Structure formats: structure tokens, C-alpha cells
């Protein structure tokens, strides 16, 4: 790797700010500035601090030998709070028992803290290594000067510097003060551990918080307790954009424990990250707040969004994609090739609106001291939370401190800080610390939903049954509408999620996009548009294989074609590639093919199965990672689906913590099973029709495959890529394809709850 690329500047930090409280006298402080400045990640409307050069990695060494390492990304289950600090610790040669992980507050000096897009490792693996290697060299130089020996003869290991020739040793703590006086090493002076010397990177390491989690001591969002804290529940408008018309709070105020009822102002202009407004009940405990809210009588104003009906929207989306759209990428002459084809097939795929439903619903706590506000929240994006609190409350950013607790899941929901700003606004109004608790009903009715979508595909086979033309069209409400009122065109970023980057070698290919307006809050959801794009593209690839009378895996190998790098930008496409240059992270069909073959091998592709049992497979690149999913599905004569086994073959380059990569892939399978088999939010009259886990169903232990076999097939020499999301997209199409193999019935709509899969 090129360190020059990855390093912008290394500077000794000043000792102001919260770091001061973190380090003891004589401590050694080091700041490394992140220089991973890729093309700015297109995120509609949302400022992305990845584009600036702020320092993002900090470590401190105390005299008592404790190495404190900042975790600046949010922990929502991926293990990032463990994994990134261990990258620093590995280069530095730390003993893990003497490493303390310190969670960062929201501050742009760390660079982007927006923990989404499966990019924490991708963006910060190199800066973290540099931070560790820099500190290691400064400690070695301090020791070498003290001992009068060449620096090259020293080494860091076991939390100390050694000079093997003279058998001298000094602990990090003893060297810290001298090391801090050393000049900052230049990028090309740094030495990095070779793979064989690494003790954490590339090895399984348990979670930093594992003990707290299994004993109940770990602190999640709702576990924050402040002296004199009140609890709040908010009655939010059932339809986006409604305002309370009349409020009768007499009965609510009579509920024991209820302290106050407060109107929360509605959002102004486009909703973005603003709280929804409504009526808040403030109480001594959560139960009283909940009881009080039940007793509120509120009538609501009209809203331009009250006509939203998801059944009608789904039909409209299907109509849109069945007609020509805006051309996004084109190769050859698709229309001519389709006309000349020996055989053509076409199909429309649909997917439902989804709620994130992280196990921990949104919750946040805020406290004011004068004109300064401190919040504690399970947020994926503490800087955005700070900005929204400052904006809503009309105070400078510097007056807002955002502490990040553990997140009980996020999946994209907790990138939006509406719930954090709500708590801050209420705490000021109440004049005491306030914790706003969202119920599951609040969560499912007031999510930033994963949008519903439709994708139409048409393909042609020549006389030899080889694919000659591939046409695809996608339509869905765009996330841009969350920030720009009336936006109705999907952005290149959204379309680049598994759609405009389709890797098929077919000679004539065209991708088109449709337009549709939006009437509900929507937002990023684990794997985002890849979910519907992968479902449609890989389901249809299987249809085409069957139309050609070919084995699906053999057919996929032909569709993928020879080993090469695919460049959609050469075919008229604006393709952001997850914010990274294609030269650094290409679309490599060789890696796609390797994942496909590994999954096919793992599931025992080609073996005979009885009627009602089938194998299915899909392979998809997303977040720069290649994942093939293969499964075995059993469908009863009555049409009940059981999935005994899944194989995932994943190539994420270097697996920094292989156990957590496997865990993310296992979790992705279960997440994919949920959205394939069960989950849907359906709006009628502008309101969500679901409210809790009885009607918004997610996979249970009994739905999950008993065996999920994860094979890491990446080359450790390749740069590490995304892990949190890319496991999800191929899961649903693999299931649908297996159902076809088992029953002959093609699933083109998710979830498949409405499909009759019975057979005889």
C-alpha cells in the first residue's frame, strides 16, 4: 500500500479538549490525520465529513502503561469498536489487557464518524495502522536515544520497546514522556508489521464489550441515567406532515407520575433529520409516560401525504418500469438484439417497504447546563446528531456534546438523528434531563423506511441459447427526497447499488431508471437499493438460465464471462463505486467467479434433490465486496418454506477480524431471510399499517437456517472492503431461486407471504 496516499500529515496535537481528561501527566499524545480522501461519497443532502482532513485517530499512553485508543465509529453489532483500535494496538505491539478503548464524542477532528456504508474498515484501516506505526517508531526512537543504540536495532513487542542485542527493555509508560518529544516520523520512515507478525489483524478477537453484554452491564441508549432525569413519550403525527389541531390532555395529566404535557413543534420545510413534532408527555418513569400518552386526545391536521397507498404505489412502480425510462448505461444495441433474438423473456420484480426494526428502538437522553447541551444516544452519526441539535435549539455546535452509547442495532435507522434532537429540545423545555423513549410502535410507524421498488427485466437468447441482450429498468422513491423537496429521480449513488454496475458480459446491455415522487420518510437501510436490485437481477438471471435450458451455475459463469475489470463509466454511466476510484477497487469478474464457485462447491451444487427440495444461488458485488450465497430450501406440499442450510462465500479482501466477518455474514443471512419471507410495511391513507413484531414479522430462531457455513475466499493481500451490508443482497434471490428449483414456482415479489408455493 502507498503510505503517501494514506497519510496527509501527522501532527502532535494540542492538549485541549476532552483528551485532557483522558490522559495523565507525562502521557504521550499522538494525533494522526486521516488522508484517505477519496472522491466525496455522494450522499444526497448530507454533508460527509470524509471529505475533510481532520485528525481522526488518537491514542494516548499513560505512565502506568495504559494505552488508550479512541474508537470514533459507532458500535452497532459489527465489532468496529473492537476491531479498529486493535489495528492500532497491533502495529504498536500492545498487550490487549493494557489497552483501553475510549469512545469518541461527535467531533469532525476524527473525520467522518457516520457509521454506515460499510466503510469503517475501508476508510480507516490505513490511518489506524499509521497511527500505531507512528507511535511505535517514536517510542523506539526515545528508547534508542536513551540507550545510545541504533533505532534499527530496537523493536516494539509485548507493550514495551526492546533492544535484543543488549537485552534492554523499557515499558511504554516509562518511555511515553520522552517519546512525546520526538519529531513526528515522515510517512516513508514508518515500518509496518508483516502479515506473519500480526497478532490481532487477521485473527479472531473477542468483542471489547462482550462481558458487559452477557452480564447486563453494557450501556445501551436507554440505560443512561442522569440525576433528576424525566422520561418522555411523544405522540407523533400518524401521517407525515400533520400537525396537532386539537389537544385534550386533561386525562393524561391526571395519570399518576405524569409531570407535564408539551407540544413539540413540527418540522419546517423538508423533514430531513428534523423531529416529527407532536405532543410529548413528561413523567417520572417510562410507564407513567406511556400511560399518559395513551390518555391524550389529539386530532391532526390534513397533510399532502395522506393519500399514500402502498398497494397503488407498487402497481405504479411496476407500470413505470414496464415503459421506457431514462437511459443510465448502454452497451451495443439492445433493441436490435432483442428483435433479432431467437427467444426473449421478460419479468417484473417487486419489493416491499421495510422498517429497520433494530432490537433497540430509538432512544436518547439530553441534559442542559446553561446554554450547553449534552446528549447520550445510540447514534450511527454523532456529528449529524450534534449539528441537528445545534440547529433545532439555535445554539452553536461547540455547545453540543454527543456521547455515543452502544447501539442495539442500527441498520441505517440510527444514522438519522431526529430522535436525538427531540430529546435535546424537550430537555431544555422541561428544565431537567430528559430521556425520550420510543416504543416499538413509534419505531415502526415513524421510521425512515427502506423504499418499495420495482424492477423490470427483459433478455434475449440467440439460437444457441446464449444470452445476447439484457435490458433492465428500476424505479423507486429516492432518498434524495428526504433532503430535497419533490425530488423524484434516483441518484447515481442509489442506482450504482447493484444496478448500473451489473457485471454481465452480454454483448448488448442497457440500464434505465424511472421517476416517482415520495410521500413518506425513507432512508438508508442495510445494503439499501442493492436489496431489490440483487433480488431482481439474480432472480431473472436464474429465469434466463432455465429459459436457456442451462444449469444455473454454468449459465452464471457464462454471464459473468472471462476474468476482466468492468467499467460502467465507459458505457455512458455515472458510477460512484461506493465513493472509491475504480482503479483502486475495480469490479473484478475473477473475484465474482471465485466466490460463485466456492458457494456452489459448499452447497454441493448439482446433487439430486427430491421434489420439494431445491438449491439456489446468487452472487453479487456490493460495498466493494463479493458475496455468493447458496442455499437449500424445503417447501412442504402446503407451501411452507424451510431453509435448513446456507453457504456464504465472501471476498472482502483482508479480513481484519475473521470471526466478526463470519458473524456479519451469518447475520446477513438471517436479515435476508426476514425480508424475503416475512417483512413488509404497507401504508394506506398515509399511515403505516404495521406496528409491532406481531404484524411486522422478522425471522425467529425457527426460521433461521440451522447451518450457515461462511467461507472467506478473499485474498489477504487485497485491501479490506465492506462487511456489514454486502452479505444481505444475494440472500433473497438465492432463496427465490431455490424455491423455483424445489417447486417450479417463481417468486418475483418480496416478501413472499402472498405467494402460493404449494405443489403436488
Amino acid at each position, binding site marked *: 500500500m502507498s503510505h503517501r496516499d494514506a497519510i496527509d500529515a501527522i501532527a502532535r496535537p494540542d492538549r485541549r479538549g476532552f483528551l485532557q481528561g483522558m490522559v495523565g501527566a507525562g502521557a504521550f499524545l499522538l494525533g494522526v490525520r486521516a488522508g484517505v480522501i477519496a472522491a466525496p461519497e455522494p450522499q444526497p443532502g448530507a454533508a460527509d465529513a470524509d471529505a475533510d482532513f481532520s485528525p481522526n485517530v488518537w491514542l494516548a499512553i499513560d505512565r502506568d502503561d495504559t494505552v488508550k485508543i479512541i474508537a470514533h465509529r459507532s458500535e452497532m453489532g459489527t465489532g468496529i469498536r473492537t476491531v479498529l483500535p486493535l489495528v492500532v494496538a497491533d502495529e504498536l505491539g500492545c498487550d490487549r489487557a493494557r489497552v483501553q478503548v475510549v469512545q469518541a464524542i461527535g467531533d469532525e477532528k476524527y473525520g467522518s464518524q457516520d457509521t454506515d456504508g460499510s466503510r469503517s474498515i475501508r476508510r480507516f484501516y490505513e490511518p489506524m495502522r499509521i497511527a500505531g506505526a507512528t507511535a511505535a517508531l517514536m517510542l523506539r526512537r526515545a528508547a534508542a536515544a536513551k540507550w545510545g543504540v541504533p533505532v534499527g536495532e530496537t523493536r516494539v513487542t509485548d507493550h514495551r520497546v526492546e533492544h535484543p542485542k543488549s537485552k534492554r527493555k523499557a515499558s511504554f509508560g516509562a518511555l511515553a514522556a520522552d517519546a512525546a518529544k520526538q519529531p513526528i516520523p515522515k510517512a516513508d520512515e514508518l515500518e509496518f508489521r508483516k502479515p506473519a507478525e500480526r497478532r490481532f489483524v487477521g485473527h479472531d478477537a*473477542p468483542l471489547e464489550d462482550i462481558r458487559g453484554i452477557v452480564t447486563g452491564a453494557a450501556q445501551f441508549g436507554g440505560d443512561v441515567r442522569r440525576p433528576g432525569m424525566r422520561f418522555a413519550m411523544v405522540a407523533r403525527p400518524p401521517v407525515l406532515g400533520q400537525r396537532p389541531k386539537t389537544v385534550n390532555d386533561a386525562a393524561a395529566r391526571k395519570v399518576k407520575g405524569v409531570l407535564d404535557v408539551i407540544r413539540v413543534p413540527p418540522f419546517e420545510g423538508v423533514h430531513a433529520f428534523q423531529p416529527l413534532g407532536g405532543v410529548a408527555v413528561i413523567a417520572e418513569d417510562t*410507564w407513567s409516560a406511556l400511560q399518559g400518552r395513551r390518555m391524550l386526545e389529539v386530532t391532526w391536521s390534513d397533510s399532502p401525504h395522506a393519500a399514500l397507498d402502498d398497494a397503488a404505489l407498487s402497481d405504479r412502480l411496476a407500470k413505470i418500469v414496464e415503459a421506457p425510462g431514462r437511459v443510465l448505461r448502454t452497451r451495443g444495441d439492445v433493441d436490435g438484439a432483442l428483435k433479432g433474438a431467437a427467444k426473449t423473456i421478460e419479468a417484473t420484480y417487486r419489493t416491499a417497504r421495510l422498517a429497520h426494526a433494530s432490537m*433497540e428502538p430509538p432512544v436518547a437522553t439530553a441534559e442542559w447546563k446553561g446554554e450547553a447541551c449534552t446528549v447520550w444516544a445510540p447514534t450511527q452519526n454523532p456529528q449529524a446528531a450534534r449539528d441537528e441539535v445545534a440547529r433545532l435549539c439555535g445554539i452553536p455546535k461547540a455547545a453540543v456534546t454527543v456521547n455515543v452509547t452502544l447501539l442495539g442495532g442500527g441498520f441505517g435507522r440510527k444514522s438519522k438523528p431526529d430522535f436525538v434532537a427531540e430529546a435535546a429540545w424537550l430537555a431544555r423545555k422541561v428544565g431537567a434531563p430528559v430521556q425520550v423513549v420510543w416504543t416499538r410502535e413509534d419505531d415502526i410507524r415513524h421510521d425512515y423506511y427502506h423504499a418499495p421498488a420495482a424492477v423490470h427485466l427483459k433478455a434475449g437468447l440467440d439460437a444457441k441459447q446464449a444470452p445476447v441482450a439484457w435490458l433492465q429498468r428500476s424505479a423507486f422513491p429516492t432518498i434524495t427526497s428526504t433532503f430535497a423537496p419533490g425530488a423524484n429521480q434516483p441518484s447515481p449513488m442509489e442506482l450504482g447499488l447493484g444496478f448500473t454496475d451489473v457485471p454481465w458480459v452480454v454483448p448488448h446491455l442497457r440500464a434505465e431508471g424511472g421517476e416517482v415522487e415520495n410521500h413518506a420518510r425513507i432512508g438508508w437501510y442495510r445494503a439499501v437499493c442493492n436489496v431489490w436490485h440483487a433480488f431482481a437481477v439474480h432472480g431473472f438471471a436464474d429465469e434466463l438460465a432455465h429459459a436457456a435450458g442451462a444449469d444455473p451455475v454454468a449459465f452464471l459463469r457464462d454471464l459473468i464471462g472471462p476474468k476482466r475489470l468492468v467499467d460502467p463509466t465507459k458505457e455512458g454511466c455515472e458510477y460512484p463505486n461506493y465513493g472509491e476510484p475504480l482503479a483502486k477497487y475495480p469490479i473484478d469478474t475473477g473475484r465474482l467467479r471465485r466466490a460463485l464457485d466456492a458457494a456452489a462447491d459448499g452447497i454441493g451444487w448439482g446433487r439430486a434433490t427430491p421434489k420439494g427440495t431445491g438449491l439456489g444461488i446468487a452472487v453479487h458485488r456490493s460495498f466493494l465486496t463479493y458475496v455468493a450465497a447458496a442455499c437449500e430450501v424445503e417447501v412442504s406440499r402446503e407451501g411452507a418454506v424451510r431453509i435448513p442450510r446456507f453457504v456464504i462465500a465472501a471476498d472482502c479482501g483482508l479480513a481484519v477480524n475473521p470471526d466478526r466477518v463470519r458473524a456479519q455474514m451469518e447475520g446477513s443471512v*438471517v436479515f435476508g431471510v426476514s425480508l424475503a419471507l416475512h417483512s413488509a410495511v404497507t401504508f394506506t391513507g398515509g399511515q403505516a399499517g404495521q406496528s409491532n*413484531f406481531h404484524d411486522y414479522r422478522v425471522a*425467529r430462531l425457527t426460521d433461521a437456517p440451522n447451518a450457515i457455513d461462511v467461507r472467506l475466499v478473499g485474498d489477504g493481500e487485497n485491501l479490506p472492503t465492506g462487511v456489514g451490508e454486502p452479505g444481505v443482497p444475494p440472500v433473497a434471490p438465492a432463496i427465490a431461486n431455490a424455491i423455483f428449483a424445489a417447486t417450479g414456482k417463481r417468486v418475483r415479489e418480496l416478501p413472499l407471504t402472498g405467494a402460493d408455493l404449494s405443489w403436488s
Partner: protein
Amino acid sequence: MPQLDVNGKAIPIDDLDPSMPLLWFLRDHAGTTGVKFGCGLAQCGCCTVHLGGRAVRSCVTPISAAMGQKVVTIEGLSKDGDHPLQKAWVAAGVPQCGYCQAGQIMSAAALLAENKAPNDGQIDAAMSGNLCRCGTYPRIRAAIKAAAKEMG
């Protein structure tokens, strides 16, 4: 004065609403925030505690129904976090976000207290009320079996 026995400690109830779910009493009044809220409708199992040795969903158990019985939460499951299930959870790396895991462990502990060697069907029956949105189910199943083996 009315009180509840939570992890062997007497916690006063004072004049709280007797219909208050045990969940909110434990979280807001007893300091045992290891007990988690996920649905409030007995749908997710995050709030699972032991009442008189049985696993119950504390979100639908009023405090009046808990009177006179021992309440055990994740904080009281073992003295040093060394219940065989807690050890098995660590060894298998079960948790992802961790939010559901207290409830998972409490459900599993009640199962193993009754059945030292549960088969897959019995694990299904005992654990299907506990959701994990992160999808740690395969490891949960494996960890229960490992703990059962250790408890022999």
C-alpha cells in the same frame, strides 16, 4: 411496606401503580437496566427475567403478579458472570450488537435448569420467543448445546 425481591435485594415498591409492568419497574426503579425493552407485547423476549425460576416476559407481567416471588435478572444470573451459558456465549462469540442477549441468556438458562440436554426441537420451543435482529441464532443454538454439555 411492599417490596420486590430482585436478585436477592429487597426493592421498595412504594405506591407505584400495581399494573406497572415488571420491565419498567426493573429498569426505572430497581436499577437493573440489563433487562431490555423491545416490544412491550411479549413478542421479542428482550425483557425476559426469571420469576420464581421460570422465564417470563417482564413487559407483560405486572408487578402485582411478581409479589412474593424471587425476580432474577441478567445481573443476578451468576455472581461473576460465570454461568455456563455466559461462558459459552463468550466462547462462541454469540453477541453482535448485544441488545437481545440478556433475554436470550435468561430464556436459555430457564431451559437448561429444567432440561439438562435439550434437543433441537426443545431449543426451538424455548427460544423461538426471543428475537435477534442481528441474526445470532446459529451461534445461540451452538452455545446452548456447549453450555449443556459443560453442565453435564
